[in-house]
Each structure stands twice: as structure tokens, then as C-alpha cells.
């Protein structure tokens, strides 16, 4: 049973996207609209990454209050930014260039995920909870290093750092968008055929194995794909923290389905809508006096609470 037909939701996304593009633009196709198109593309790619990575991560862990952030990817990103600013000062942005910073972030997060998967899954250890625990501890350790670096920079440099710890759509350059697009498309190609396998994984390890799924290998594969998605969204937009929880749980509540064929696209629509609404509000209502991150958490949190209260056992 679906509460909202899919096409209505997607129509809503398109209306929102057009509103975002055209509202108060004066139909300026030389500057305003191309700029907005860039931000829109960042939102779409970021939304897709966040929705897919959160839903797949929750399926693998069998837990609906987790996001991949618990594995420490965003902590690694913030540590990198802090170290860059500490080492090179606010000039680091100029020296590396935005594209350099983006590529470095993506590569570092992928290297981090590769290393912890290699380390934790060696000699056939299979326990996902052990992985989560290590991720959580590493997140704390890395965050401490980040704080250490942040305390040793000047207030001016700190404000540069602060801007990296908030999601923003304006940073993304066209080259970054193209690279991100390619990475996301690759992920999509490799999960497209195996969506029912994700459904089986959500039955838990024992049931999945007895239905013929090579659990260990599949989990490692999906964790790797999740790492790619998180690396893209974090490098492109910055840390989105726990938005994934809102997106995933709203998706489950609206679709009432366990099938990833349905939840993954629905999740994208929801994440993209949230981003567009928040950005519209920041640009046109608050006039840049607040940030997307704050708005997203505020609105999503309130909506999510309402959903929990109204549907209770349903979600």
C-alpha cells in the first residue's frame, strides 16, 4: 500500500525545482539561472547520495536510527579540512583550488573506508556491530584530533573551517558535479540488478545465507558502495550529519514498503525536496541569515517527530 503515488511526489520535486530556478530570477539566463542550475545539480546529486547511502546502510545494519556518519567518514573530512587550514592557513583554499580539495577529500574518505574494511574484515570477521563500534570510536578519536587542530588556528581561519562543517550547495564547481555524476552512476549500475538482494539482506544474516546470499561478500560490497556515495556527498556539500535518518524513515513511512526498488527512488525524491525547500527558505525568506544545515535539521526533526506521533507503530 502506498500512501502517496510516486508520480505525485516526482511532480512535486519538479515543481519545486522550477520554483527554485525561476523565482525572482528575472529570467536572467546569463548569470542567475546558470548559477542556480549548478546549485540544483549539487542538491540532486547530494540528495541521491544521502538517500541511497542511508537506506542501504540501515538495511545492512538492520537498524533504523543509524546513518553512515557513524563510520567516521565525515569526521575524516573535517579532520582533513582542519589540517589543511592549520598547515597552510586560509590560503589552503587558493593553493589547492576547489577541485583539488574536492578530489583530495573523495580520495581520502575512500582510502579510509578501504583501510577500515580491510582491517576489520580480515580473517573472516563478520560482525557488523563490531564494525559499527569501531566506526564510532574512530569517529570520536578523529574528532578530537580535529578539535586539537581547530584550537590552534586563528579566528579568521576558524571561520573558514566553520563554513566547511556546514552543508552548502554553492561550493560545487561544474567539474566536481561531473565527477560526482559519474561516481553515482557507477554505483547505480552496480546495484541496479541486485536490488532484491538488498531486500534479502534486510532479513538478517542467517536468513540471507540460507537463501543463498554470500553475506560476507555482499555486505563488504555494499559498504564500499556506501563509502563512495558518502565520499561524494560530503566532498560536494559538506557533512549532512543525521539528515539520512530523516530521509530514510520518512521514506519507510510514506512507502510502507521494504522493497528497495521502491524505497531507493522515493528516498531520492524526499531528500531532494528537503534540500530545495531548505535552500529556497535560506535564499528568499531568511536572506542567507541562516544555513541549510540548521533549517534541514529543524524542519526534518519537527516533521519526523510529528510522523512518529501520528503513525506510532507504523514507521
Amino acid at each position, binding site marked *: 500500500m502506498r500512501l502517496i503515488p510516486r508520480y505525485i511526489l516526482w511532480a512535486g520535486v519538479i515543481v519545486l525545482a522550477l520554483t527554485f530556478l525561476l523565482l525572482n530570477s528575472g529570467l536572467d539566463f546569463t548569470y542567475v539561472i546558470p548559477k542556480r542550475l549548478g546549485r540544483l545539480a549539487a542538491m540532486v546529486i547530494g540528495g541521491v547520495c544521502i538517500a541511497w547511502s542511508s537506506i542501504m546502510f540501515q538495511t545492512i545494519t*538492520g537498524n*533504523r536510527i543509524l546513518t553512515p556518519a557513524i563510520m567516521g567518514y565525515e569526521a575524516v573530512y573535517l579532520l582533513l579540512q582542519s589540517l589543511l587550514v592549520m598547515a597552510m592557513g586560509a590560503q589552503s583554499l587558493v593553493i589547492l583550488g576547489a577541485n583539488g580539495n574536492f578530489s583530495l577529500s573523495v580520495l581520502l574518505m575512500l582510502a579510509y573506508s578501504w583501510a577500515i574494511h580491510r582491517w576489520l574484515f580480515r580473517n*573472516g570477521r563478520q560482525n557488523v556491530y563490531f564494525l559499527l563500534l569501531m566506526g564510532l570510536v574512530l569517529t570520536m578519536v578523529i574528532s578530537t584530533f580535529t578539535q586539537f587542530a581547530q584550537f590552534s588556528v586563528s579566528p579568521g581561519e576558524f571561520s573558514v573551517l566553520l563554513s566547511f562543517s556546514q552543508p552548502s550547495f554553492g561550493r560545487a564547481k561544474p567539474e566536481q558535479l561531473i565527477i560526482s555524476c559519474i561516481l553515482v552512476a557507477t554505483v547505480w549500475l552496480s546495484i541496479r540488478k541486485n*536490488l*532484491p*538482494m538488498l*531486500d*534479502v539482506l*534486510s*532479513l*538478517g*544474516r*542467517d*536468513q540471507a*545465507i*540460507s*537463501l*543463498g*546470499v*554470500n553475506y560476507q561478500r555482499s555486505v563488504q560490497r555494499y559498504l564500499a558502495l556506501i563509502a563512495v556515495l558518502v565520499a561524494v556527498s560530503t566532498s560536494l556539500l559538506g557533512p549532512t550529519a543525521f539528515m539520512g535518518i530523516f530521509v530514510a524513515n520518512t521514506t519507510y513511512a510514506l512507502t*510502507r514498503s*521494504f522493497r528497495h526498488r521502491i524505497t531507493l527512488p522515493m528516498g531520492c525524491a524526499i531528500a531532494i525536496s528537503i534540500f530545495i525547500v531548505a535552500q529556497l527558505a535560506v535564499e528568499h525568506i531568511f536572506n542567507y541569515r541562516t544555513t541549510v544545515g540548521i533549517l534541514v535539521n529543524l524542519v526534518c526533526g519537527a516533521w519526523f517527530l510529528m510522523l512518529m506521533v501520528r503513525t506510532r*507503530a507504523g514507521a
Partner: protein
Amino acid sequence: MISVNNLSKTYGTKPVLSNVTVAFPSSRLTSLIGPNGAGKTTLLMMLARLLEPSSGSILLDGRETSSIKLSNYAKRVATLRQSPDFNLRLTVEELVAFGRFPYSRGMLTADDQHAINEAISFLTLDSLRGAYLDEISGGQRQMAFLAMTIAQQTEYLLLDEPLNNLDIKHAVQIMRALRRLCDEQGRTVILVVHDINFAANYSDHIVAMKDGTVHCIGAVPEIVSEQKLQQLYDLAFKVIHDKQGYLCNYFTTSGEQE
């Protein structure tokens, strides 16, 4: 036929199963019985390939199971663990459909739908098809999980305490269904069961385990004797055998050992 040779499992230095050699006859219902911690479930989980043996081998029709691809193994051996727990909202039919995954990889064909319907009506769950798993009773849920395992259409079924927490009516229903799977469809059923009376009345073979080894093994009349059961459980038993079947009384018999 599925058989194990010198199978051992140790956790750290603690052996939970040592040098077990058993052959499970085909098209028969075999019960694994014994006290807690005897290694019954460990043995069953290794047959299901949910646990790696520390040493020894498991052979399926003479072939080492670890050399069989997991996706092919699932077409021959189906496993049901005790009280599977997950936070999905599924209907009975959706759950049963999962049993077809080894064949269809999620794209149900007409054959799959046929197998699903068959499994559902085999356990007379037709009226519950569209019911959500979290809205039906524990016994009905257990039947639904069993239907999923049946829909997998494997020669072998491994069940870990399928009667756990069930009332006597559902327990009898499940055992009768398993009996019919053996007799009518020639499937091989291996289950861990704690209620000695269910094991005695519904099995063909019994494998009694104690302290990680096979205590005794054989057809039901050989094993269900006062002397053997007393040794196995360290409890005094009184076994009544009549036309209706076996009744093992261990509740009020005097002369308890130790």
C-alpha cells in the same frame, strides 16, 4: 544424503562439538535431542553453513559442502532459525515469496507464484495471506516462516527448535506438516527439538547429543528407552509405549539420579 565426519567446533579453547560423525538418512525426519549446551544447534548451524567448522567435513551426497556455491546450496538445503527477528513490515505472502529468491533472484515467475501458493495452502495459511507478520500470533508467524522454507523447495530442511514458544496445537500442526513433507514429498527434515515426546512420536531417527558428542543414535524405538534417556538427561524416565505412540514421563517419576 547429508553426513558429517569428525566434525569439531571450538570457541577459543572451549570445544562445543568434538569429533561428531553422523549420517542423516534421506527422506526421513531426524530429531536432534539432548540437554542445553550439547551442541545440537551448533551442529545444525554448521549443516546450514551459518557457522564454519573448526575441523572435519560435511558431505552432501558425497560432495564437500564448502565446495558448493552458496547460491546453489540454497536450492538444496533450507534453514529456519529460531524466532527470526527483523523490523520489516511484511505480509505472510511477501515473506513466503522470499523463499523463491534462490531461483528467481527477486523476479517472481509463474512457477514461483505456484510454489508460493502451494506452500501457503500446504500449511493452510490461505486466510492469512495478506496479514502482516506483526499482527498475527506467534504460532501463525512460525507457520509463515515455515511456509517460506517450504517454498524454497529444497530436498533438505533444517529447523532449529521450530516448536519454541508454541502452544500444543500449533506444535502438533507443525510436526504433522513436517511429517507430511517427509512422507508425501520425500524431503529430508532435520530438526532440533526439546520436547522428547514430540521427537519420539514424529521422528524416524533420533540423534541424541551430550557434551558436544553424539551420545546415541538410531531409530526411534532404539533410543526412546528409559535407560538411554536417563543417561542422556540425568533424569528418571518412565516410557509408556502403546498403539497411540510414545509417552515419556519425566515429571513426577521418583528415583531421580544424582
